[in-house]
């Protein structure tokens, strides 16, 4: 409780010191707001509305909530407790990219899990206990530059490979924020998109992720002993897949072999891989040609092609947290607010700022989400209360790994991070 009181004070101070820097979201007074306080008894306070920005800031200064959210939806009466009576007017199209939902190799180093059912523990990304199969896992998910880079790469891919070329989305209508933890939010503020139903939103998400793709409809078929593939002239996913295959075929043989043998990505038999390598130049000519598409030289087995194309779709598609886009009543983190699990700022980013943005070591001060860096070097004493805490690299300096009972001295921003993560207490 002492820790929470301390963090609450720090958060209040942040809102007080930065009252003019907290941005105003569009159509502010039509948004519903929600807050998660530090008090563990209260889960979330929602159905709140603010007439103006000043009232919101005052609320943040007075309460210093752990998490702050606003709706993607617009309502006539955002404060109404009953969703049916809120007067729904539409919802921004929101895409959440969070490394929690996809694999990155760095998770093998820094994500720790413990099965509450059978006691087994380990590192990496698991959905259920590999021993007993139960879902009751306690997880300690960490962050590093690698996984945040992976999330950023997905956002950039989303914009340049899908939103602009396929959906012709106006850049001016795209708002991007760093979530303050393990990902990014992308919001499209467009009246036509706001009118979409959940089913219609799902269709867009399926397009972006490649879910429900039918290789047969795109052109893959078996005739006798021959396999006929896609034409690069077929607009849409067939073109995307053809381009990706072309990219792979242009790689060196060693790179291709390494990629196709990676069991995390592909599940191909050796025969397929060997043929792919042996005939890579011939296959490249076929893929590039508008008049040939006999893929039999690599394999005449349709299932082998499914095993190849499925992971290709996964590589092209975007890793998104689907329910966030489909659920029109979701709340998302308010830009400029603090993330209660890290103490980092939810940072708004302009389109041209995303490429160079580095949340754990940002050089541009106004974009820096690490807000608790003291101008005067202050050291805080903490005790580790979690059995294993992975190493943390922030602002170019690495702290940890730590073990239960370790007494440590760390700079203020690291202390806030470890306290927010719930792995340490002040001493």
């Amino acid at each position, binding site marked *: 409780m002492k820790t929470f009181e301390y963090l609450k004070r720090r958060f209040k101070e942040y809102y007080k010191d930065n009252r003019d820097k907290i941005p105003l979201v569009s159509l502010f007074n039509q948004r519903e707001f929600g807050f998660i306080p530090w008090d563990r008894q209260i889960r979330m306070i929602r159905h709140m509305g603010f007439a103006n920005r000043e009232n919101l800031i005052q609320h943040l200064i007075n309460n210093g909530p752990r998490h702050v959210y606003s709706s993607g939806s617009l309502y006539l009466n955002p404060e109404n407790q009953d969703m049916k009576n809120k007067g729904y007017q539409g919802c921004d199209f929101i895409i959440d990219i969070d490394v929690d939902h996809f694999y990155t190799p760095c998770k093998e180093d820094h994500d720790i899990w413990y099965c509450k059912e059978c006691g087994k523990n380990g590192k990496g990304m698991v959905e259920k*206990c590999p021993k007993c199969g139960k879902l009751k896992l306690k997880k300690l998910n960490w962050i590093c530059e690698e996984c945040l880079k992976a999330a950023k790469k997905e956002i950039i891919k989303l914009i340049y490979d899908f939103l602009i070329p396929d959906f012709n989305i106006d850049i001016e209508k795209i708002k991007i924020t760093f979530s303050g933890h393990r990902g990014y939010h992308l919001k499209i503020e467009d009246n036509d998109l706001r009118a979409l139903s959940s089913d219609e939103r799902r269709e867009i998400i399926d397009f972006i992720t490649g879910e429900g793709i039918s290789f047969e409809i795109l052109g893959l078929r078996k005739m006798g002993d021959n396999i006929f593939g896609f034409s690069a002239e077929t607009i849409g996913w067939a073109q995307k897949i053809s381009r990706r295959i072309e990219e792979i075929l242009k790689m060196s043989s060693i790179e291709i072999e390494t990629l196709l043998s990676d069991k995390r990505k592909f599940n191909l038999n050796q025969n397929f891989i060997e043929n792919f390598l042996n005939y890579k130049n011939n296959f490249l000519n076929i893929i590039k040609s508008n008049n040939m598409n006999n893929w039999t030289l690599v394999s005449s087995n349709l299932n082998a092609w499914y095993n190849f194309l499925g992971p290709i779709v996964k590589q092209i598609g975007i890793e998104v947290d689907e329910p966030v886009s489909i659920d029109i009543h979701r709340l998302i983190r308010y830009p400029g607010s603090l993330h209660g699990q890290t103490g980092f700022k939810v940072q708004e980013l302009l389109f041209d700022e995303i490429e160079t943005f580095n949340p754990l070591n940002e050089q541009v001060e106004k974009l820096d989400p690490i807000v608790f860096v003291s101008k005067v070097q202050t050291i805080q004493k903490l005790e580790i209360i979690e059995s294993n805490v992975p190493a943390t690299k922030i602002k170019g300096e690495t702290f940890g790994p730590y073990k239960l009972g370790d007494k440590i001295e760390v700079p203020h921003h690291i202390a806030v991070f470890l306290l927010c993560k719930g792995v340490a207490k002040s001493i």
Partner: protein
Amino acid sequence: MSGIYDLVKRYPWLPSLKTYYSDIASKNPLDFINEIFTSDKVEELKAKVLTVFNDALNNIEQLSEYELDEFNIFVYLLLKIILYILNNKVVSNRIANIYSKTTYNELNKENEYNLYYIYQDLNLEILFEEKPTIYKKLIVKEQKEIFKTNFKISYLDYLKLASNLKDEYRKLVNNAVLQGYVYIKPENINRLLQEYVRMKFLTQNGEISAELDKFKEKLFEIQEFKSFYDTIIAIWESKKEEFEYMIDISFKEGKDISETFPPCIKEILSKAQEGQNLIHTERLFILWFLNSLKYPEDKIINVFSTLPDFDREQTAYQVKYAMKKGYTPYSCKSLKSYNLCLAKEYKDKLCLEGYFSRLQDVQKDISHPLKYIEVKQYRGSKKLKKTENQP
């Protein structure tokens, strides 16, 4: 090329009906019924409406009469009023299906200019380009199949029309999307409009309410209408037996095993029971699934008997063929790819968490709906044994 005034006669569901035929379309339904049932058109109109009902309830694929004249407007409006007060899902589905199918065939006969006007009237952002675009190319051996079109529809309008159809051909991901538009042939747009028209007959059917009863009462004060309505009811009564086959899923050793069905199957059965249309993959799945459980042929056919386009003879042929071939029903992986998996929607624990295999001492995933039944039945038999052993 026709003007929109003429097109409205052919397609009375077009929004311009209210502009060009405001005297009919904007009328209070009571006044409308009163007026037409006292006019000299009434006999012809009644005959046309009865033909629609007879066609729909006789498993005919397309309306036997579809005159593209002003009568068409009256038929459409009268059908909607009758279906509203009838409030019968099976009948509504059948009328909606046959009417929309006929509309689709009629739309396909229209020239590109008329189609363009129709799309514009529906406020769809559809562009017509002088030069057709090749959007798909299939090459098999020496044969090339080239798909080209002059039409492209905004993806937002495409979604409005297509997102209800769970058909994998209509899924955005399997279509030619570029720069905010879906390249599409007019017959495919028309197929989407078929669904739009189908929904026009279904959206008004809600629960029986006091308001509906009051409306019905008022309408029945018009004697001529009341007796016409009774004729329709009589047609339905004489046919209803054909559509009210119980979906008997209690086969297999005389025990009701429907409780052990996974959510994907439960959902399809419930849709069929309501007379909703099933997409091709749903039909195949349920057929192969029931066949795997050794359901008798007639019981499988009856499952399909409530569908709007049911044809007993054709269904019997398809069921027999599938039984002979002995196809295996889709696995969970395939069901997911067809968007038919409902584990998450139903929050089904067995689907989501799998089961513990004592034999292998590991937690295993449910990878097939038949495995789901096996596990459920095993658990059921354990429970039964426990109850039997209790004093």
